């Protein structure tokens, strides 16, 4: 009787595991497909593969348009990441320590770009930047990216701050340090893993941002995702495969850094 129950149990367990594994395969499928087709010599990838080729990579790096876009994307990432990380770290720290009316409102305001329809964020910023006369500039793109990256930074840093014992800060203050010194010398070093993970998330998000960029960029400020969008929208161009592999390599790097600093399971 007991044996029968256990057998039934394991059958059910196996079923759940099979479904679960299929779901994970489904999640990773697009990435596998891209890696597979980036090295394929024919325009449309074939299965089984007919050969191995790096020609799509040479096509990307031989094309000045793609190089321009790569340059724009890298510049954006380099400006957006430190700005978002500095502001986001400051904000998450004070939101964790301060208690005031309306705190929840500010918290949800900062996290809201995750939930607001992207098309609405894009149009709102497009309209504002046009009024300010800066639409299509690097500044416009920087601001748009910062809005999207903020929630990720605040979430990862908040995890670190909530694990931090306020007694340590109190001790530093009692020993005569000013609030500023305490923040620099005690708080920041202790929440460094969260800050680093936030920076990685921010950099990756900025590098892949499209929904807002599409609205606020000009022909001279076309980032890699926006150019990719244009290529896909108009034709089927296999050089996109090579571009995609660059994105995947970056996200693998990001994964490794996050796992080594704070642990994936903690930030998500």
């Amino acid at each position, binding site marked *: 009787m007991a044996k029968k129950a256990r057998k039934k149990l394991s059958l059910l367990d196996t079923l759940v595991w099979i479904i679960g594994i299929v779901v994970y395969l489904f999640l990773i499928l697009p990435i596998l497909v891209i890696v597979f087709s980036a090295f394929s010599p024919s325009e449309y990838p074939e299965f089984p593969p007919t050969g191995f080729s790096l020609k799509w990579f040479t096509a990307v790096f031989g094309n000045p348009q793609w190089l321009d876009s790569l340059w724009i994307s890298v510049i954006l990432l380099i400006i957006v990441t430190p700005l978002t990380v500095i*502001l986001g770290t400051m*904000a998450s720290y004070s939101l964790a320590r301060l208690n005031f009316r309306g705190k929840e409102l500010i918290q949800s305001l900062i996290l809201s770009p995750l939930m607001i*329809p992207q098309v609405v964020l894009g149009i*709102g910023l497009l309209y504002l930047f046009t009024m300010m006369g800066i639409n299509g500039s690097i500044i416009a793109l920087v601001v748009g990216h910062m809005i999207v990256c903020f929630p990720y930074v605040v979430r990862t840093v908040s995890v670190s701050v909530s694990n931090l014992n306020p007694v340590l800060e109190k001790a530093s203050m009692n020993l005569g340090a000013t609030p500023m010194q305490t923040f620099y010398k005690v708080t920041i070093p202790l929440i460094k893993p969260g800050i680093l993970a936030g920076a990685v998330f921010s950099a990756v998000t900025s590098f892949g941002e499209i929904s807002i960029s599409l609205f606020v960029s000009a022909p001279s400020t076309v980032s890699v995702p926006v150019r990719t969008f244009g290529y896909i929208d108009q034709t089927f161009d296999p050089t996109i495969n090579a571009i995609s592999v660059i994105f995947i390599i970056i996200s693998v790097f990001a994964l490794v850094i996050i796992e080594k600093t704070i642990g994936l399971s903690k930030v998500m």
Partner: protein
Amino acid sequence: MRKTKKEKQQVFQWLLLIPTVLFFCVFLVLPFVLLIVLSFRDIDSMQNLLDTYSFSHYIEVFTSDIYIDAILSTLGLAAVTTVLCIVFAYPAAYLLVRAPSRRLRALFYILLVSPLLTSVVIRTFAWIVLLAQNGLINDILLKLHIISEPLSLLWNMKAVVIAYVQVMLPFAVLPIATSLSETNPNLRNASMSLGAGRIQSFLKVTLPLTIPGIISGAMIVFSLAAGSYITALLVGGRMQPIFPLSIYQQVMQVFNLPLAAAMSISLVFIVLIFVGILGLILKRWEARMHG
């Protein structure tokens, strides 16, 4: 003496918060307010802005068949995506929480997070490679002689749903995994030792305890699915009745910004209503579970 120190610290903490609050006021709240004002402004037949205000754009949105159709099918799309995401997310979350070794759990996390770290354009492109007429799926099916003519898998709502589920699934898995890991396994064991079967224990004990995770996952997936346009445009094509896509086209092709603003504000409120209802259900449920 100590009090002044505490006050000093509080002033410092406020100073740290203010730049961010200002940033969000200028670049998130202000554009939204401007959009609301713009959505009421009249335009002439050449789409020049006039100085008069009216509800005309909202009337246009909610009386034209095209837009009503687009709103309804967007809500349907978001609902289907949400349900599929939750159904598939549950076993994935279960594996994540119950993985027997740390290594395996880390692997599941990597599989889960890596799509999040890859740009939406790239993931969408992969679906085009898979689903196109001469794409991988048709290629394999033809070579296996399962079909003799390539199937048209792209440029329809089904393709959009498949791509949406893949893009948004991690957002459903993570909250469900969190609430699964918070459930006390003793409760389930107690239920089973009292004679309940495994399925019965799941339905009566585990599932109710993870409802909060399910609902918060549903809230995120629903609002993402109702507001995205990039994937819809690339996989579904320009002709799909998807509301965010209509908004994008109003701005980029028709250049009717006030109408696009009215559509945007309508979309935000429609999404808010649905997410708000889910939030209410969540509150009710938590009140029932804990009190």
